[in-house]
């Protein structure tokens, strides 16, 4: 249990306190990699004991591999969870880019593979496959990547979506302890579950009630793979203070555009995103699991709400359900990460260390 990992979402350009996803995506600053500000965020994350920072992928942000290259060279310990869409780049080039990055930053990253989230956005990248076909392609994509990472000679592969002949790259994956990066498969569908089993090292879900996460993740754990969750944390000195923060986030005075988020949902063919959105009709799934921000802030905003102690207890419940990696976010990002690192993490680690010692 001592090897549970806690990641946080990287600060992005022009981040507004509590902005909804559709507000944030439209901002010109979201696309601008202000390195100085982000390096500061990385260094603070290192101090707080955060394992990695998530560099997200979509049309509105800078490329996460290149961002990690720049940030990785300005930092020493912090790792990155690099989100990427399969299907936009040939697997050989993808492995070559990642191996180059690993050689330059000592392998300090893992991958969060998303098969695609929005039809419109995929079309903008020239990708016209439907949800299920995207998963079939992702399967081939990762099969080729993993064959290249095995470094057992030239790789030939002929599938429906990819064909490579005698593929090789001279730059290996360079890391003190791995021969290929950890591969998180992000998604909530049966296809993402199966893909995680076959090609991933971890199945990354949106937050749900612990017993449900455990029940759906049985096969993944049995196969020796990990389970992870992505969610937000809304903390306060007391439960009441935390609740006030949560409700403020979605209050209409913020000018949150619910219609824009509904339009995002109409375009989405991601099962993960849809399911979470539907779950959000019941606001509290457990005493600490709040879905209220999902309809305005996106599915990664299923939130653990409470005091530091309550949040630590919730995390223990999730760990007991088999979750070993977490990607957290919060508002404002830096203060929320500091609250987590300073107030919650010591409580989470304490009983874990006691348990390990005994």
């Amino acid at each position, binding site marked *: 249990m001592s090897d549970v990992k806690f990641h946080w979402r990287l600060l992005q350009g022009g981040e507004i306190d509590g902005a909804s996803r559709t507000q944030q*995506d439209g*901002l*010109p600053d*979201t*696309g*601008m*990699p202000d*390195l100085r500000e982000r390096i500061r965020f990385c260094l603070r994350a290192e101090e707080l004991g955060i394992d990695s920072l998530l560099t997200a992928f979509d*049309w*509105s*942000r*800078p*490329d996460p*591999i*290149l*961002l990690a*290259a*720049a940030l*990785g*060279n*300005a930092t020493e310990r912090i790792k990155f969870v690099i989100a990427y869409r399969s299907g*936009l*780049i*040939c*697997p*050989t*080039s993808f492995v*070559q*880019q990642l*191996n*180059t*990055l690993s*050689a*330059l930053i000592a392998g300090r990253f893992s991958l969060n593979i998303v098969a695609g989230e929005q039809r*419109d956005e995929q*079309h*903008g*990248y*020239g*990708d*016209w496959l439907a949800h299920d076909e995207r998963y079939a392609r992702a399967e081939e994509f990762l099969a080729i990547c993993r064959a290249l990472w095995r470094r057992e000679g030239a790789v030939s592969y002929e599938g429906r979506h*990819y*064909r*490579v*002949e*005698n*593929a*090789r*790259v*001279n*730059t*290996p994956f*360079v890391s003190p302890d791995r021969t290929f990066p950890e591969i998180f498969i992000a998604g909530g569908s049966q296809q993402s579950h199966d893909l995680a089993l076959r090609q991933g090292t971890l199945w990354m879900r949106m937050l749900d009630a612990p017993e449900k996460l455990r029940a759906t993740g049985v096969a993944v754990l049995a196969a020796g793979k990990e389970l992870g969750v992505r969610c937000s944390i809304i903390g306060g000195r007391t439960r009441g203070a935390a609740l006030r923060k949560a409700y403020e986030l979605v209050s209409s005075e913020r000018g949150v555009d619910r219609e824009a988020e509904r339009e995002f949902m109409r375009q989405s063919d991601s099962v993960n995103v849809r399911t979470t959105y539907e779950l959000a009709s019941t606001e509290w799934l457990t005493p600490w699991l709040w879905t209220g921000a999902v309809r305005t802030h996106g599915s990664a905003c299923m939130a653990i709400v409470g005091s530091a102690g309550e949040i630590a207890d919730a995390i223990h419940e999730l760990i007991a359900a088999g979750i070993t990696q977490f990607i957290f976010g919060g508002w404002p990002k830096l203060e929320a990460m500091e609250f987590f690192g300073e107030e919650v993490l010591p409580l989470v680690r304490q009983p874990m260390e006691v348990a390990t010692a005994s």
Partner: protein
Amino acid sequence: MVMRFHWSMSSAGENRRGAKARAAVSGIPNLDAHVRFCRIAEECGIESLLTAFGFHRADPIVLAATLGALTGRIKFMVAVRSGVCSPTLFVQQVNSVAAMTGGRICLNIVAGHTPEEQGYYGDFLSHDERYARTDEFLTVCNAFWKGDGEANFDGRYYCIAKGKLNTPFVAPDRMRPEIFLGGNSAVAEAMAMKHADCMWRLPEPAEKMRDKALAMVSAGTEVGILVSLIVRPTHAEAIEATEELLANFDGAPKRTHDEFARKSDSVAFTSTYKLANADVWPAPYLWTGAVPYMGAPSIAIVGTPDEVTDALFAYRDGGVTQFLFMGHPDIEEMQRFANEVLPRVRAREAAEAASAVAASS
């Protein structure tokens, strides 16, 4: 037009890398050696450094993003094979580097040179089809760089609907990266005229390149050459340096390049091999002796600082205004160029400009 000088970073930290079989070289980039190379190039007044593309190398754009974060002035000429990723993703990557480095990125488009290596990347198109796809690829890229809304394109190889990106190409003086395109075939030429700011060629004697180059320039595309440089204080020492370079090869590496030339379907590379077989000194300043051992780009301008300066002006008068140099070894040659040749070039350019002003007044 003021001449512009770039240098290849392909051998940073590893001399005579070009003489080794591609499968045998390491792909692990030596970061310290690369950073040192960049800093020396900045001191030497080099404008940009080529980061090449190949299965045997580190990825050029990841390398450029990293080196860009560790340097202040030098630009990176990132080699690009079209056909290995979505043009939207490609523009996103290029714009990301631009935004992180203040626009210190330009592109060197290569359509690919051996069908065998293309197969590693899942690309099985023929030479001419690769150019047709590159044409579409660059058309989509330019639609994004125009930045006037969504990119739409419906072609044989790419179909993009309402493409948008939120990271613009950021530079003090440009809306899109400068594009260089290499090749010697007719189809490459047409592509360069359509999409590139400058076309790289492998050199022939200046007077032989003149007509074609001037025609291109008058049609709005600059011409540059990819060439090695051997500068020594005296002519005899320069000749001696060519012999020393050859003495490094005992015959074995030659086969490497014979094999590469046989597999290559690049017109530029194969025509330089032909030139090298026909004549070791096609011009008094142009030497092809190392081509069989180190490949087509080892065709070299050889001579004293004055002779090399004269040769560069001979090219310039024939329409060739940009130069992408290699040296063997690189850093020493770059420093000789910076100390001995570049001041002569700039002084003569200034004198020409002054006399042009005098003549017109």
